């Protein structure tokens, strides 16, 4: 009897289990299975595999989708980033720097309502800078060659979409980045550190966290352990740029980073 049956290949049996056959093929397989109980048992098990997989994971597709997976919101975030109007930003940055440096220390209580948390972040950024800029082979966790992966990974972990500032005009190229643990008592979550290097092998790091709980705007320039740190905070992020460049160069780099990281969908700045 079996000699006269159509050749039933593995592909046909798989197609049967997955419901991918034409009527004719299905009839041929059914006829074959009637005289091959071992194969029939195997196919029955395959179909139970299908049921088990559907039972395990099928319901995931009916779960409510979290907002962070809404393509419209993701695209809007990107559009806001690319619509960045930097001449206005530059003007705002200049104003901020002017205010920051003219108010002086007596303005600190006004400018830094979360002073302690900001100071902790600045210290953490400086400590991390000092630790990792000395590294040759292990300076970063993920290198700039995997930039897309690096940025989406860090964005996910600090829960803020970040892009790496372009510092090519200052002669600095991205080396890569790493994830750092939350600074104790800062309540800012984990930090992303991006490292840049110029042709003279001088390094600058950018230390970014999600906003502090109060989301207040702050701006500070600190020198600690012979390292300069430019720090600012807004309702989206905190960022500290650390380096030991000549002051003018350091300010230019910090301003570039500030301009590129502090974007608003409406391109308006919240005044200090």
């Amino acid at each position: 009897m079996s000699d006269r049956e159509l050749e039933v290949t593995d592909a046909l049996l798989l197609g049967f289990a997955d419901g991918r056959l034409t009527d004719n093929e299905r009839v041929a397989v059914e006829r074959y299975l009637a005289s091959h109980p071992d194969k029939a048992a195997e196919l029955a098990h395959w179909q139970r595999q299908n049921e088990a997989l559907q039972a395990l994971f099928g319901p995931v597709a009916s779960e409510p989708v979290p907002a962070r997976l809404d393509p419209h919101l993701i695209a809007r975030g990107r559009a806001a980033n690319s619509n960045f109007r930097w001449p206005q930003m530059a003007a705002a940055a200049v104003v901020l720097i002017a205010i920051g440096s003219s108010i002086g220390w007596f303005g600190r209580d006004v400018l830094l309502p979360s002073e302690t948390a900001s100071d902790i972040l600045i210290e953490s950024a400086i400590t991390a800078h000092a630790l990792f800029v000395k590294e040759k082979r292990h300076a970063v966790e993920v290198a700039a060659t995997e930039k897309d992966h690096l940025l989406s990974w860090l964005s996910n972990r600090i829960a803020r979409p970040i892009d790496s500032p372009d510092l090519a005009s200052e002669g600095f190229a991205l080396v890569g980045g790493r994830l750092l643990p939350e600074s104790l008592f800062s309540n800012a979550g984990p930090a992303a550190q991006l490292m840049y290097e110029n042709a003279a092998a001088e390094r600058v790091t950018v230390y970014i966290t999600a906003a502090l709980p109060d989301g207040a705007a702050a701006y500070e320039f600190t020198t600690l352990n012979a390292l300069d740190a430019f720090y600012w905070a807004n309702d989206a992020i905190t960022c500290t740029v650390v380096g030991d460049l000549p002051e003018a160069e350091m300010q230019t780099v910090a301003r570039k980073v500030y301009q590129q990281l502090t974007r608003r969908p409406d391109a308006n700045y919240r005044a200090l």
Partner: protein
Amino acid sequence: MQFLDEISGSVPALRRYARALTRNADRADDLVQDCLERAIRKQRLWAPTGPLQAWLFKILLNVYRNDFRQQRRRGDHQSIDTLLVEPAVPAPQHGRIALGEMSRAIDALPADQREALLLVVLEGVSYEDAAGILGIPAGTLMSRLSRARAALRTMTGVSEEPRLRSVK
């Protein structure tokens, strides 16, 4: 915006596939978010005539494989919670495969077989599209599916209905 609407329509399937690949809800959603960001960034690379969902699956798999390699390099481990908690599922009925057992069996499959089987069985992707998404010839896909099915049967076969066998 039609592009984004179409992507939206695929998000539930992407989440389901990512969840089955990782068996970790948070990690799965991280992968999907990463996938969507890449898709939106690379929007102009997508030819509107091709199947969008297949393209998205392809991106998701790339993200998943990169992530997997990174994790191994970093020695990143799953949290104890993830390892200990089996999906909340009813006890198996007679003749069914115990779902906890199936979940572990899927995890034990070689990655290439798991990726292929879940695409076809869970996502209902055609053999042709699945081969395209995985970047392998149709014959290779079929042999991966066969091997995956055989392995799952070995790993979960104990709860099979008893079958009469003639004894010599």
